[in-house]
């Protein structure tokens, strides 16, 4: 970090003071001279103020940096060696035969050697460490220190930078303090650019003479005799044209700068200011960022020949661009190494050895400021509550987000592939389907991945946050939650599935129908949810009262007031995918709501913590009632409208979820979770026309594709406290025993399980049909 020492001494206009006491003479030329001197002195004061204002204030507008969540490595972590290598490369590690520097790794099949880079996290600094990491199949089996072999329980890898929020002029830099700059680099810089740096007072007469000689010989300007101080002044304060006036200004300001500030401060400013390349609209300034940009590693981790290359590039970053002109860059680098040898700063043999090395430049990673625009939009929304836009662009904030980059890429790739597949399979015009996907870790509400358009780079309409669509049957679990919470119903309650009409105060009478237009007479409550039947759901909802359902929805995080219309029971409500995710988060997390978060911490440019977004929970529903709904949602995935999941992942995966389909097949939804993640998927058309896909035909396909590629964490059903598992005959919903071959265990809140034996139960000596009467007695 650049220091900002305050200087109190001032020598403003010292040049003019000594002359003031001289006796006045009446010669006009002397008055003229005096006037000129006063003007010059005034100008000097002005320049001096300019310099000091810039040097003592915040010197640079620094972009905010946005990071993904760091990869936490520990024995037992599910990660393939190939996935690990890829993750390392994304944060800029280079694979080498033997470790020499931080930022490198070597791999021998399932064993990695890794030299981590120092990284300052919000709470602590993760030190640079040399580690051995062993894999056993698809998981880490051990992490040990390379020296001594001590086991390391957990390592936080530096996070991948996913975006920057740039100052408007597009200058990007990573500030480095002089103490963090290898001496080899400063030596090489001084030898190459300004050999007299430590002796001169801002301008170098020898340098000017040498340049003048070269220019006269060439008959034009071919060489600038600029010192590092002059170059800094030029970049800091002046335009790029080469007029004489500017040259004069430059010299004057260089002298003033040297008057006020020490060599170290000037050198440090130079190292951070210098222009070293271009990346689209972003300009690369300073050695700190250049080191990352060209070599993918921290300045302190650079090899000598890499430093020599950067120093060589100062002369012309685009002319000597090592990616576009590797040969030129190599010659320039070797020239710098020769100069160092010539000046006795490098052994000739060592110089020869370094000159033979490759450039070592990494492929240009798309350090896109729009890599994941939909997720970033969510980050911005959260930031806007606490920060002004201009602070984000200039204060060098570091923003640690919850994004799981690997998962995000899986979501993006799957969305692209599955939507094309759906369009082909259902003969939908190409490009007509759109989608939104949100994945969260539901126990803490962290958003792991988010997609707002089938094109992951599209930065326009963000459907995940902005598309308000009818939710249809996605609402049903909350209707059932309200019913089960009231204790008037159990999973085995019998619901009527028969036509009915509700007269409405205004408009047409309400006549709900099932999707298949059939009526089953009577169904068990769990089956009504598992098969997503509208009529029994509506009857039950009206029985417990719309107010109960609305209260439940509001507590679970429904964002707006809800008009008490019966159609809400079947999901005639419009919500964004993000809002749906918040509702389901509490359901998946046993009735404990956590606000969805995209940011963990924000620190300032010095690494000091500014803001944390801590984990919060709030109990919003009775865990006992929630655990009954959870059981039913597992059955949805096992034998109901999402039974494709059971078939694909196995019933033991314990997946749970709910399909949603709206009128005329306009919206296709699936909200589901495994033991760790909740994912909500919407598929539909922007023009809200029918696309002909149900929830299970559309959204479920994408959901299942993403889950298959990112891995399912199987979950075992855990009833809440006060809930018992009771053997039930699934046909009658009555108490089963060994006599019932198809008996199942269903959860019941204590004291609510049916006592009446099912017809199949042994020891039941009542005649057939008797159970039915008993139930209704």
């Amino acid at each position, binding site marked *: 970090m650049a220091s900002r020492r305050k200087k109190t001494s001032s020598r403003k206009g010292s040049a003019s003071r000594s002359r003031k006491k001289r006796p006045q003479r009446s010669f006009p030329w002397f008055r003229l001279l005096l006037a000129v001197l006063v003007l010059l002195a005034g100008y000097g004061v002005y320049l001096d103020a300019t310099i000091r204002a810039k040097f003592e204030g915040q010197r640079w507008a620094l972009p905010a940096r946005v990071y993904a969540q760091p990869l936490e490595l520990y024995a037992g972590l599910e990660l393939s060696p190939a996935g690990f290598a890829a993750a390392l490369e994304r944060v800029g590690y280079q694979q080498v035969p033997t470790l020499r520097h931080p930022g490198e790794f070597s791999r021998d099949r399932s064993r990695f050697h890794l030299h981590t880079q120092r990284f300052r996290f*919000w709470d602590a600094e993760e030190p640079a460490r040399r580690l051995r990491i062993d894999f056993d199949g698809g998981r880490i089996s051990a992490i040990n220190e390379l020296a001594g072999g001590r086991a390391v*329980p*957990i390592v936080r890898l530096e996070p991948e930078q996913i975006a920057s929020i740039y100052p408007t002029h597009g200058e990007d830099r990573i500030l480095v303090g002089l103490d963090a700059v290898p001496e080899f680099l400063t030596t090489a810089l001084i030898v190459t650019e300004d050999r007299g740096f430590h002796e001169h007072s801002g301008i170098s007469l020898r340098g000017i003479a040498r340049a003048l000689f070269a220019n006269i010989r060439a008959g034009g300007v071919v060489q600038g005799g600029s010192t590092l101080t002059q170059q800094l002044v030029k970049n800091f304060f002046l335009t790029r044209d080469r007029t004489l006036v500017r040259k004069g200004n430059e010299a004057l300001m260089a002298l003033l700068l040297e008057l006020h500030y020490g060599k170290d401060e000037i050198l440090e400013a130079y190292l951070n200011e210098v222009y070293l390349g271009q990346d689209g609209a972003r300009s690369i300034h300073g050695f700190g960022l250049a080191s990352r940009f060209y070599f993918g590693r921290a300045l302190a981790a650079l090899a000598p020949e890499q430093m020599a290359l950067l120093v060589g590039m100062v002369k012309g970053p685009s002319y000597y661009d090592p990616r576009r002109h590797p040969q030129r860059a190599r010659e320039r680098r070797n020239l710098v190494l020769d100069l160092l040898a010539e000046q006795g700063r490098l052994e000739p043999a060592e110089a020869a050895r370094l000159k033979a090395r490759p450039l070592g430049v990494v492929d240009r990673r798309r350090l896109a400021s729009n890599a994941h625009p939909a997720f970033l939009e969510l980050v911005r929304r959260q930031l806007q509550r606490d920060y002004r836009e201009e602070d984000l662009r200039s204060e060098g904030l570091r923003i640690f987000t919850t994004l799981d980059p690997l998962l995000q890429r899986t979501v993006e790739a799957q969305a692209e592939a599955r939507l094309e597949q759906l369009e082909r399979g259902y003969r939908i015009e190409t490009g007509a389907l759109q989608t939104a996907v949100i994945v969260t870790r539901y126990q803490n509400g962290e958003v792991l991945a988010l997609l707002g358009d089938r094109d992951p780079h599209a930065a326009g309409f963000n459907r995940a946050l902005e598309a308000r669509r009818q939710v249809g049957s996605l609402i049903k679990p909350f209707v059932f939650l309200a019913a089960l919470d009231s204790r008037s119903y159990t999973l085995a309650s019998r619901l009527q599935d028969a036509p009915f009409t509700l007269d409405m105060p205004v408009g047409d009478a309400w006549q709900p129908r099932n999707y298949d237009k059939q009526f089953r007479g009577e169904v068990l409550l769990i089956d009504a949810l598992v098969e997503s039947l509208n009529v029994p759901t509506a009857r039950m909802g009206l029985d417990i009262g719309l107010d109960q359902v609305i209260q439940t929805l509001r507590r679970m995080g429904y964002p707006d007031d809800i008009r008490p219309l019966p159609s809400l029971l079947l999901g005639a409500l419009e919500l964004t995918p993000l809002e749906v995710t918040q509702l389901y988060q509490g359901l998946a997390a046993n009735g404990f709501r956590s606000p969805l978060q995209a940011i963990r911490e924000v620190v300032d440019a010095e690494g000091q913590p500014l803001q944390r977004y801590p984990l919060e929970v*709030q*109990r919003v529903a009775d865990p006992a009632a929630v655990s009954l709904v959870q059981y039913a949602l597992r059955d949805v995935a096992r034998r109901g409208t999402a039974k494709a999941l059971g078939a694909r992942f196995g019933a033991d995966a314990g997946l749970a979820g709910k399909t949603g389909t709206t009128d005329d097949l306009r919206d296709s939804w699936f909200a589901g979770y495994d033991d760790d993640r909740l994912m909500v998927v919407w598929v539909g058309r922007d023009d809200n026309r029918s696309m002909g896909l149900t929830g299970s035909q559309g959204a479920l396909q994408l959901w299942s594709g993403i889950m298959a590629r990112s891995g399912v*964490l199987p979950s075992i059903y855990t009833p809440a406290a006060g809930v018992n598992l009771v053997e039930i005959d699934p046909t009658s919903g009555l108490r089963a025993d060994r006599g019932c071959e198809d008996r199942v265990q269903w959860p019941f809140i204590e004291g609510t399980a049916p006592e009446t034996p099912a017809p199949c139960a042994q020891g039941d000596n009542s005649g057939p049909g008797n159970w039915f009467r008993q139930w209704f007695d």
Partner: protein
Amino acid sequence: MVRLTQILLRFLPLTALLLSACATTPPGERAPVIDAGSPAGSGTDGSVPASPRSAGQAPTNVEVIPLERAAPPAGSPAVASLLGQAEAASRARDWSAAAVSLERGLRIEPRNPVLWNRLAEVRLQQGQFRQAEQLAAKSNSLAGDDRLLQTRNWRLIARARRQLGDEAGAAEAERRAEAFR
């Protein structure tokens, strides 16, 4: 059955030491504190249960799904190490550092009720009484039949409610804490 959590909680001041000891345990060896909670022949590894009650369902069949993420072993050294860091930070009264370590642990083992309990304790110390109460309730919802942990959580809830001026609620929580003893 004696659970690890009970042991952890009973010897709380010692836990950090023991946990940091297991942080340095060579691979393949289990730290002594983990073994201490494991009743012989119980068939469990004696570590903190991720899913306290298995509800008698068939064990998960890992063969079914080709690309499955298996849960990290519950009460893993990684989480033990983070718990140790949180204890150390708490002793230094650096509550926010303690919270960060516990939240890291919860990302690895979101169902570990001890982590939720410790986070509730940290919030209580920070004067965030409502969050303390909620986090303790969350811990309880995951505690299964770990009565000692539930007692601790109810006592914590009682303290939080008292701070919030809810005397009746505090008394009720204390009653429930006693009921678990």
